[in-house]
């Protein structure tokens, strides 16, 4: 077999290992999916009435409009939430003796990380499906065409790929799983300081500047446009661009940290 064939085979083996871990430890997946669902229910049923009325445009919005408004933020939060699990499982692997065992075997080095990335992508897809399901049950309405749905799924895949590589890097950089579990909290909070839950126009000047230009805002705006059936080209380009940057930085950082570990 060629080197590339071994890399694929070893990655598949590592993916199977990670999927078994997910199956053995379902409470983690449930927790990670539960977090965005909790926010969804909280924001729709507790804050939704008031917040919906405050949405710009006439006539005044309601709970249903607010659900539509926050769905992109909740999707973002779902991807971020699953990435906590990724950072923790990477950090756990690295602090465990098993990583040294893998490193003394003649396997494709990258497979340890690709196994985690692929596993996390599957976990994210599952989480997004559940979140979408619940949002539709709550009455989410969308005007997206089939092509726009395809675009939405593509962008979500790109986002979760990027976020996963970035959190693999966080996991590698953390001295232990406990530290690793702290970092991605920032990603869960970022949608709040962006266009996730309120229009950025409603924020005070300084904060608004940050909210408008932070990477999650164009990504959430692109989701919103696609769901509404009126995608904005500029949002989509910014969103895809940010995903590529986050993913590339995450990948190069992870690769560097992984190699550095081998030298000590």
């Amino acid at each position, binding site marked *: *077999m060629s080197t590339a064939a*071994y890399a694929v*085979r*070893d990655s598949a*083996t590592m993916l*199977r*290992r990670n999927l*078994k*871990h997910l199956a*053995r*430890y379902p409470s983690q997946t449930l927790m990670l999916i539960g977090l965005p669902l909790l926010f969804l229910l909280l924001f729709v049923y507790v804050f939704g009435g008031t917040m919906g009325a405050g949405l710009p445009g006439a006539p005044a919005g309601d709970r249903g409009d607010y659900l539509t408004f926050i769905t992109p933020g909740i999707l973002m939060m779902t991807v971020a939430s699953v990435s906590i699990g990724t950072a923790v499982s990477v950090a756990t692997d690295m602090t*465990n*003796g*098993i990583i*040294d*065992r*893998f*490193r*003394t*075997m*003649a*396997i494709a080095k990258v497979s340890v990380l690709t196994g985690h990335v692929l596993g996390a992508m599957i976990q994210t897809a599952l989480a997004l499906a559940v979140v979408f399901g619940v949002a539709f049950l709550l009455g989410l309405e969308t005007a997206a065409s089939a092509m726009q749905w395809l675009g939405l799924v593509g962008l979500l895949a790109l986002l979760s790929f990027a976020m996963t590589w970035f959190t693999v890097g966080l996991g590698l950089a953390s001295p232990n799983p406990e530290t690793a579990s702290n970092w991605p909290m920032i990603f869960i909070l970022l949608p709040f300081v962006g266009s996730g839950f309120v229009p950025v126009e409603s924020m005070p000047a300084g904060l608004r500047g940050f909210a408008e230009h932070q990477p999650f805002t164009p990504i959430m705006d692109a989701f919103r446009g696609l769901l509404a059936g009126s995608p904005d080209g500029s949002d989509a380009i910014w969103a895809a661009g940010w995903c590529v940057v986050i993913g590339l930085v995450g990948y190069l950082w992870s690769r560097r940290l992984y190699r550095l570990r*081998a*030298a*000590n």
Partner: protein
Amino acid sequence: MTTRTTAIEVAGLRKSYGDHEVVAGVDLTVPEGTVYALLGPNGAGKTTTVRILSTLLPADAGEARVAGHDVRREADRVRASIGVTGQFSAVDELLTGRENLRLMADLGHLDRCRAETVGERLLERFDLVDAADRRAATYSGGMKRRLDLAMTLVAGPRLIFLDEPTTGLDPRSRRDLWGIVRELVADGVTVFLTTQYLEEADQLADRIGVLDGGRLVAEGTAAELKRLVPGGHIEFQVADSERVAELARRLPEASPNPRALTVTLPHDGSLTTLRRLLDGIDDDAVTGLAVRTPDLDDVFLALTGQPTTDESPEEVAV
């Protein structure tokens, strides 16, 4: 095809962390099909040496060839020939014993049929059949060690590294593990192991290297090394410090310890010398007596002039 007769060949191996030289110029040769034990206290550089030889760590200087390949330039070829069981458990605790072995078979690129046969055979050989479908997290320390070693053997390596394989095991598990190592050797596998226990090296190894402060201070068969050890010790517990001094005056080779109220002197283990010794001592001066057979401390005392310590002594680069 070339015939290899040397499994491990190391010359001038060095590794430092900052100013601290952990491996300070080690040379050693391990012929194929033999057992080599690296004996030393914590911090002597045993684990670092194993990590370098098993491609986990690059050396700062020196040559190391393992299974006929350079550990640095041909790391993947070395990896394909070796099996490593580290000091800390390297099993996947969320997987069952059987799944752990299967994981190793898949990563060793064994075909499905062979993977199953090898897995079942190893489960039987390591007495893990009953626990095969339980998660490794539920295993006892001894079982984890056995699974760990079984995982190392899945791909059928001809050379295995065992870093302190019995540290933390109860005496029975230790004996079981020794039995397994002997079976491996009978199959012609080369074993490179590290240990803190002279007895373990004595039981298993063809050759023993004594490592202290990153240097091999002695090397030879168990019998050769034992000749270097001046027998055991007799330790007297003495009633008070005056009598410690008095006893030390009477026994010129003794070393008194006034604070611990003990007097220690070398002893060859014979009853005759013990009787003669006791005849010359007042009954009420001595409150207790212990006869100690040679142990790692004695080897170290003899070879380095220092007892074993938990911290490795500061080393100066040569």
